């Protein structure tokens, strides 16, 4: 298990480096929300900068930032209203997390199924359709797809499309929730009315967002499966009299899974930060949109820095999990180290 341990330990300096880069970049941005807020009062701005410690040397400010995050999960206060940005960012992170989780689940399940079938039946109509879908998933712009989904859902199916995470009439039923992971927590607490409401509101954005991992996973699965199926051990297994289904699902798929898991992990991290378009089209209260709307548009440096730090952290953690997963899937990883 030294591999796993080493892999976990490497994460901390990595996080520190990320925080330095994020902090330095945010710091280097010319102009911020405060310029706009104090447009007519240089004295008030100077006093405010002093009170917020913004005139301290860079290293001091970075140290304070890292310490605040490491000890209290504090992400500094907004330049617009001096409110802590952490709580809101964590709330949005959880909204994005649930969206990404559902989209990934959907995308990976469908992607795997289509990929496997395409590989098993190469050059069949199913294979061609799968490839067209995969290509479409990559190339169709998500804001267009999202818009079409909404129109079809509302106009054709009378779907009660809403950008709330749950029906606001259920507010009293979520008051005592410990997290903002409404979908998961309502399931854990068996509050099925809340769960149904959450699931309904997640459905459309999750479908739209799932097209990206679906496409990638389909292509990756198809390629990896075809490669593994062409290897000798697969032919041998068939020759020994194993049924095709057994060969594919038990032997070939397992070996093909390594690149698929890698790409899934990368995709998960990417979607966490890159769901901006989906979140905008569906008005989903997620992190990406929040960083753009509240951070970038208003040049609110702490929101930008904190948001990117959270995305980067999630990315690193997910990839850590993926690396640890290799140990389970591929015994060679364990033995090599």
């Amino acid at each position: 298990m030294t591999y796993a341990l080493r892999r976990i330990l490497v994460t901390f300096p990595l996080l520190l480096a990320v925080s330095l880069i994020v902090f330095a970049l945010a710091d280097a941005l010319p102009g911020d929300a405060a310029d706009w807020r104090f447009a007519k009062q240089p004295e008030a701005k100077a006093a405010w900068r002093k009170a917020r410690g913004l005139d301290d040397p860079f290293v001091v400010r970075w140290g304070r930032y890292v310490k605040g995050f490491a000890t209290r999960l504090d992400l500094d206060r907004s330049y617009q209203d001096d409110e802590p940005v952490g709580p809101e960012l964590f709330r949005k992170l959880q909204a994005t997390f649930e969206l990404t989780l559902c989209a990934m689940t959907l995308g990976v399940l469908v992607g795997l199924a289509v990929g496997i079938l395409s590989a098993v039946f190469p050059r069949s109509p199913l294979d061609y359709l799968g490839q067209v879908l995969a290509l479409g998933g990559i190339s169709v712009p998500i804001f267009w797809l999202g818009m079409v989904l909404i129109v079809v859902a509302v106009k054709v199916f009378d779907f009660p499309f809403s950008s709330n995470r749950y029906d606001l009439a259920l507010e009293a039923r979520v008051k005592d929730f410990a997290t903002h992971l409404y979908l998961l927590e309502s399931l854990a607490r068996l509050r099925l009315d809340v769960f149904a409401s959450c699931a309904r509101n997640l459905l459309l954005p999750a479908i739209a967002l799932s097209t990206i991992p679906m496409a990638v996973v389909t292509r990756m699965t198809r390629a990896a499966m075809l490669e593994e199926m062409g290897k000798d051990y697969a032919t041998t297994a068939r020759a020994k009299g194993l049924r095709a289904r057994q060969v594919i699902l038990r032997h070939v798929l397992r070996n093909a899974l390594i690149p698929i898991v890698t790409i899934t992990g990368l995709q998960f991290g990417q979607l966490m930060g890159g769901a901006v378009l989906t979140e905008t089209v569906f008005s989903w209260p997620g992190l990406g949109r929040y960083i753009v709307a509240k951070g970038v548009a208003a040049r609110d440096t702490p929101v930008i820095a904190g948001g990117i730090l959270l995305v980067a952290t999630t990315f690193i953690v997910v990839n850590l999990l993926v690396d640890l997963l290799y140990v389970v899937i591929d015994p060679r990883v364990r033995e090599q180290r």
Partner: protein
Amino acid sequence: MRIRGFRARAGLLLLPVPLLLLCLGCEGRKKAAEAKPPLDVTKLLPQAPDDPQPKDGGIFIWGRSGDATLLDPADVTDGESVMVVTNLFDTLVAFRRGSTEIEPSLATDWSTSPDKLVWTFRLREGVTFHDKSPLDAAAVVFSFERQRDPTHSARRATSVFSYYQNNFKSLEKVEAVDEHTVRFTLKEPYAPFLAALALFNCSIVSPRAFQSEGKDADGRYAYNFAQRPVGSGPFVFESWEKDSRITLRANKDYWGGAPRIDKLIFKPIVDAQTRLKELEAGSIHGMDNPELRDLEIIQRNPDLRLLGSPGINVCYLAMHTGKKPFDDVRVRQAVAFAIDKRRIIAAAYNNIGKPAVSMCPETMVGFDRTLIDRTRDVGRAKRLLAEAGYADGFKTSLSYPASQRTYLPDPPTTAIQIQQDLKEVGIEVELRKRDWSALIKETQNGEHEMCLMGWMADIFDPDNFLYVLLDRENAVEGTANNLSFYKGDRVHELLKEAQASYDIHRRERLYKEAQEILFEEAPTVPLVTVPDFRVVRKDVRGYTIYPAGGEFFRHVSFAR
């Protein structure tokens, strides 16, 4: 490895796809069959019908294009924040429902001294704030003093109070005469005074809320009022989930009668299409800023009601008169002759909106109805340029906002139209797209040559347009609202005189002369005035557009 035998079954998996496509096709044909005459926006009503027996209760959700920035009524400047605070607070005087007329609110009556410098207001008795503390003369004085006095404890280091700075320069002091009487003393006569008092920044705030958490080391109250506001209005602040929703609940003890709905939720949905779809699906009950090209679709939808009111705004092109070649009046006139407002409205406003002839909108008192606009005349524009010594034209730039505004729904198209119009008379325009805040900064500092801008009424008074946008007192680099930096002496005299006069006929005469001079001098080219649109679901009752801005949901209810 090849596997046979599954192929036939695999084909079955494809079956649902064409079926689904078929379904969608049928649906599309059904919808396309209905066609109605085009929309006439002038026939739209500004109000959803009242219900004689409204239903009690319900959550009303208002979809809008952005989140609020802060909720301190004295410190807000953006529309998204304003529409929230107008429901949380009361002012001494208020706009009559759906109109720009002033009526009593917290003040039941008032009197003025003969020189109009001393105003005495009698306060409504028995009014309390949401925290149950009494709303008395001391609270009124507190609400104004914190804006006037830079050392006041109820003022954050970051407070700007720009509306107070702009509108109450003439206010000398506010005193409590007794528990229910307040006296305002002005330094000089200021005609828009009463109208200015109806503005959100004059909301009366709860002093007890400010005092509730003690003071910081720097002597200021610790309570963060801008995030947890306490007023006396028809709704009580409940929670604010940033960029997601602001929830207010009905004030059951409201002095003017409790609202019918239980809760009022403001929900930012940035994309206008998404906003409309949520409204169609019924997850929100009303929305602002529909896209102009969607108006006809909305009008045809039996579940929705499109409301409209002639807007009090102006979109304009400003030329920096302090810079060559715009220091020459002939060049400015040439630009005015070159621009085709109707074509801009057709291209960028979906043919909705009226060409503007003055910087004072047609919908505002004091608008000079005798003004006749220039019609486009390329030959005349070229002659004027030649007279000014620019027979071969010149190069300049136009700064315009990247994001759309109410009065500027399609900034790039508008800018390109202007570019093309000016090209025909020999003026080469480089387009400079700017973020909103960057554009404000650039233009306030006077770093632009030409800019595309607009203004919406804050106070219902022509002073709010003409003085703010064209007086030399507002042409100070760094804080300018007069973006043409026009410094005409006669216009300044007229505007100051109008500010000090309470005689509406005299004021109208003064503004008329000012508008005539401004038309000839052409420091700006007024382009268009856009109506205000809102959409509510058919079962919403009592919603009204307030032309002077802000949203007031006191009278809203659902149909039985």
